[in-house]
């Protein structure tokens, strides 16, 4: 597979949509269950704390500028231990990819097309993902660039249409939560919002043409994604109230159902659902891409393309068995996911950074690569050598 490079703007957009991901669909319920009417405060603190995590990821990325996360594992921790941790990371990515397929399937089945089996949604979605992976990260980045204006347009329309129904009494009284539940709520929010940003390390320094600008983009994208999430969480608390938000499975969809302007402009929720279908597509692709590239790099395979189709098949199958029902999924996402993802994203990245600093591992050929990169930045098109 030839080297494909992204521009800083494309990387920013990918970061933004990736951080929103499934969080837009499931986070309001889980965080409101924990923090009640103070959910938006918890989300704000969570977004601010996420900058520390982004700082960790970018410094790890700068430590190993030409390697992906899996290669960095192998280089820093040695062959055997590195393979073990990479395997943990890849299983995390792959299970999450199939979990997201499960989410999109269950969302479509419960809310939109009740008689269609979830398998068909999983198959249709996987066809898109497999196609995108065959074309590579650069084409995917351009598709993200096209989808981003649609996303922001729908989001702004959503904001304007729902704002007349805001009832400010729903978030009063503020600052009522205890410290322990605030901490757990913030951790759960961050585990869905910012821990998975580690998937971007598969593309961050090695497949970006100007790493310095992309680093700014990493922060900026996280900030924008966080603002979108804070707004969604605050709106669902303000409009449908903390109790109703916490018992809904998909609060943002319930929020979109409330849109009604003059009893004329209503029932537009499925147009609003395009918003999270876009963001879930971006996130699922990154998980899937990370697992494909990761498996290829563990096995030292140069061209990972032959692995895409069988992995797609495995992902369809896993999406059907990964959660037998929504209770299982809620339990897993509330209790186990923060630990599991925290171990293989934040703690692993921290460990790698510390060991790399101690062992003073840096890639040598930084100079000639940056020359090549500046040439590349002016092109910013599909022409790859």
């Amino acid at each position, binding site marked *: 597979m030839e080297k494909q490079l992204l521009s800083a703007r494309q990387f920013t957009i990918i970061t933004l949509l990736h951080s929103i991901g499934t969080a837009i669909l499931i986070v309001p319920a889980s965080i409101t269950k924990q923090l009640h009417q103070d959910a938006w405060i918890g989300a704000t603190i969570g977004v601010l704390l996420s900058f520390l995590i982004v700082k960790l990821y970018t410094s790890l990325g700068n430590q190993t500028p030409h390697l992906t996360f899996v290669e960095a594992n192998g280089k820093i921790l040695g062959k055997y231990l590195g393979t073990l941790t990479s395997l943990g990371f890849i299983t995390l990515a792959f299970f999450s990819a199939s979990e997201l397929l499960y989410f999109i399937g269950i969302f479509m089945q419960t809310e939109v097309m009740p008689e269609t089996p979830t398998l068909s949604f999983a198959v249709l979605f996987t066809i898109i993902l497999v196609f995108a992976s065959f074309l590579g990260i650069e084409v995917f980045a351009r598709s993200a660039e096209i989808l981003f204006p649609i996303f922001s347009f729908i989001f702004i329309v959503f904001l304007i249409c729902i704002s007349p129904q805001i009832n400010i009494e729903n978030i009063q009284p503020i600052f009522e939560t205890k410290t322990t539940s605030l901490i757990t709520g913030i951790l759960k929010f961050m585990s869905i919002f910012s821990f998975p940003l580690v998937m971007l390390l598969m593309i961050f320094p090695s497949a970006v043409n100007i790493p310095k600008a992309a680093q700014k983009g990493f922060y900026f994208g996280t900030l924008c994604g966080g603002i979108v999430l804070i707004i969604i969480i605050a709106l669902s608390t303000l409009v449908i109230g903390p109790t109703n938000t916490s018992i809904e499975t998909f609060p943002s969809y319930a929020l979109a159902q409330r849109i009604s302007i003059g009893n004329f402009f209503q029932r537009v929720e499925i147009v609003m659902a395009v918003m999270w279908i876009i963001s879930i597509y971006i996130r699922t692709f990154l998980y899937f891409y990370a697992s494909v590239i990761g498996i290829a790099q563990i096995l030292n395979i140069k061209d990972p393309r032959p692995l895409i189709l069988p992995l797609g098949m495995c992902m369809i*199958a896993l999406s059907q*068995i990964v959660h037998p029902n929504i209770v299982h999924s809620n339990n897993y996402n509330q209790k186990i996911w923060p630990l599991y993802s925290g171990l293989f994203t934040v703690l692993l990245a921290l460990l790698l950074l510390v060991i790399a600093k101690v062992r003073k591992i840096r890639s040598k050929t930084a100079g000639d690569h940056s020359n090549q990169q500046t040439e590349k930045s002016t092109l910013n098109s599909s022409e790859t050598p």
Partner: protein
Amino acid sequence: MFISMIVILVSLIIAYITIPPLLKKGEKKTIFAFSILLFIGAILNIAIGLKINIPSPLDFITFIFTPIRKMLLSFF
């Protein structure tokens, strides 16, 4: 039953498309990884088609992490 037939057909087609060019290049490792993954995928999909109950892999992860979670919660 119908799903399983389609799965077998699709996996045969995938193998037919992918393996000959790899054989030409002589990439044995890729063929090996490809076949194993395709085999796992096909088996899982056939089992789903036949409505066989497969335990979720996340149950295993839950089994590992539940004691850790209990230990962490005891600190609070």
